[in-house]
C-alpha cells in the first residue's frame, strides 16, 4: 500500500465512536491533527520491503499453553469483593445501562 489519505474530522469522529471515546468538538480538531501526524510518521514503515516475510505476533516461542480445567479457589472473589469497586450495584448485581430499546 502506498501513502495513505489524510485523516479528516469525519474519520476521527468515526474512530472515536468505534473506540467508545466521548470527545468534544474542540478535541476532535486537535485529535485530527495529532492522530494525522502520528499516522503520517508511522507510515514511514511502508518503505520497508516485507514481501514474503512471515508475521511475528509474539516472541516467547510458546504455543498452546494449557492448564487443568479446574477451579482455583485461591483466586475466587466473594460477591462483596467482586462488587466492591463497582459504582452502581443492585441486589448483589452490577447495574448496566439498557442495551435494548422498547418498541
Amino acid at each position: 500500500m502506498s501513502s495513505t489519505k489524510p485523516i479528516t474530522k469525519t474519520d476521527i469522529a468515526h474512530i472515536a465512536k468505534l473506540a467508545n471515546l466521548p470527545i468534544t468538538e474542540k478535541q476532535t480538531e486537535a485529535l485530527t491533527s495529532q492522530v494525522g501526524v502520528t499516522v503520517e510518521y508511522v507510515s514511514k514503515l511502508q518503505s520497508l520491503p516485507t514481501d514474503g516475510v512471515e508475521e511475528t505476533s509474539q516472541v516467547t516461542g510458546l504455543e498452546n499453553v494449557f492448564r487443568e480445567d479446574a477451579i482455583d479457589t485461591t483466586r475466587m472473589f466473594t460477591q462483596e469483593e467482586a462488587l466492591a469497586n463497582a459504582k452502581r450495584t443492585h441486589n448483589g448485581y452490577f447495574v448496566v445501562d439498557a442495551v435494548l430499546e422498547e418498541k
Partner: protein
Amino acid sequence: MSTLIDLPIAELIKKIRKKEILSVDLITEAYDRIEATEPSTNAFITIVDRDTALENATAIDARSDLASLKLPGIPYVMKDAYLTRGVRTTAASKILDDFVPPYSATVHKRLKDAGAILIGKMNMDAWGHGASTENTDYGPAMNPWDLTRSAGGSGGGPAAAIAMRYASFGIGEDTGGSIRNPAAWNNITAMKVTYGRVSRYGAIAYASSLDTMGPTAKTSEDCALVLEVIAGHDPYDATSSAEPVPQYFDALGSSIKGKKIAVPTEFFTGLDPQIDALIRAARITLESLGAIVTDVSLPMLEYGVPMYYILAPSETSSNLSRYDGIRFGSGRDLFTNESKRRIMTGTYALSSGYYDAYYKKAQRARTLLRDAYTKTLTEFDAILSPVTPMMPTKPGVLLDDPVRNMMADLYTGLINIIGLPSLAIPCGFTKDNLPVGMQLIGGMFSESKLFAIGHAYQQATSWHTNKPPTLKE
C-alpha cells in the same frame, strides 16, 4: 551524608540478619526523608501509611527465620501499574482514582513473601502512555537532579524515588522504555527483562506483547538480587517462561575479559554530542576491563519508532477497551488527551481496510528486526547503545509534540518489539550536571551476562554513587 539506604541491598540484608540494624530503622529513615523532601519531586501517587509500613517492618524484625527470607525488611516502591491488594492502584488515571484491588500482582506477592516492605505506589504516565510522567492525572513527576525538568517516563515516580533514596529498589513496567528512560535521567540502574521472564499477572496492561516487569535500583548488583526474587514461571501468566531462573547475584563477579560488545554506528548518527561523548568514554572503560568492543552496522533503527507506534497503540486500544466503568473505575471520558490519541491511533491501525497496511505490516517488520538483532547477538555478547536521544526535558516539550514524544523511545521501543533484555546504567553527567545512561542489550534470557558486564563497569566507575544536589549536605 551517607545513609542506610545508600548501602547495597546485600549489605543491608546481612546487617538485618545479624540484627546490627532493624528493618524499622530503614523504614523510619525512608519516611523521614520522604516527609522532609516531598512533594518536591511528586514521585508518589499513594504513600503507604507510615504506621502500616512500620508494623510490617516490626513483624519482619520479630521473625526467627530471617535467613530464609530473600529481602527481609527492605523498603521498596512500585510503579502504580501493579495491583496491590488493599492499596489503591490508579495507573495514574482518574478512571481508577478510587480503585482498591481485590487481589495482588504476582510480583507484589513474591516480594511480600520475600520480606520486602512496600512504601509507595508511584507516579507514571497514565497507562504507561508517555516518556516524561506528564501524562498523569496526579501532577508531573520532577527530576531530582533539576526540579524544573521531567523525571522521565513512563516510570518517572519509581526512578525519582530511588535517586532520592526513598527506598532500596523499585519495580517498573517497561513497554517501550518506561524503566530505562527514567533510569537514565535519574542516574540509577534498571533491567528491562526478556519478555516472559517476569510474570505480568496483576500488572495493568499497556501493550501485552511488549510489556515487561523489572527492577530498578542504584546498581546492577541490587537489580540482580531483586530479579532473582521476582523472575520465574507463573501459572497465572501463560506468557511467562519456564526457563530456569539463574543465580544472577552469584554470577556478578565473573570477568568480562574477552566479552564481545557491538556498537552500532547508526545509533550515533545525529546523537546529542554530550551523550555521544559519554558513551564513547564508557566504551573505553569497558575495553580497559578486557571487553572487545567493535563497531558494527545494525540496520532498521529508523523503523523502530514507526513499528512501536503501530503495535503499542493497537494493543493498548484493545487492552483499554475493558475500562467501561461498570465493574470498577469511572467512565471513558476521563482518559487524557495523550491516551485518547494512542487509543484512537490504534483503533485506526486495526480498523477494516487499514489493518494490512499498518498492523500486519508492522508484524512482518518485527520478524526482520528480530532477525537483524539475532544475527548480531550470535556474534556478540551485548550491544552498547544510548538509552535516550535527549536530556531530561522541560514541561510541555514532549507532551505537546507527538513526533518528539515518539522520538524519546528511539533506542528503547525497538528492544521491546523483539523481547530482548536490556540493562540501563549511569555513564556520566553533562556539563549541566544532568545524568546520562547507556544500555547493554543482550540475547533472550541473557540477563546474567548483562548484570555481570554492568557490575564490572560499576566496580570501575563511580557515576552510580552520585546523589542529586538536594541530598548533598
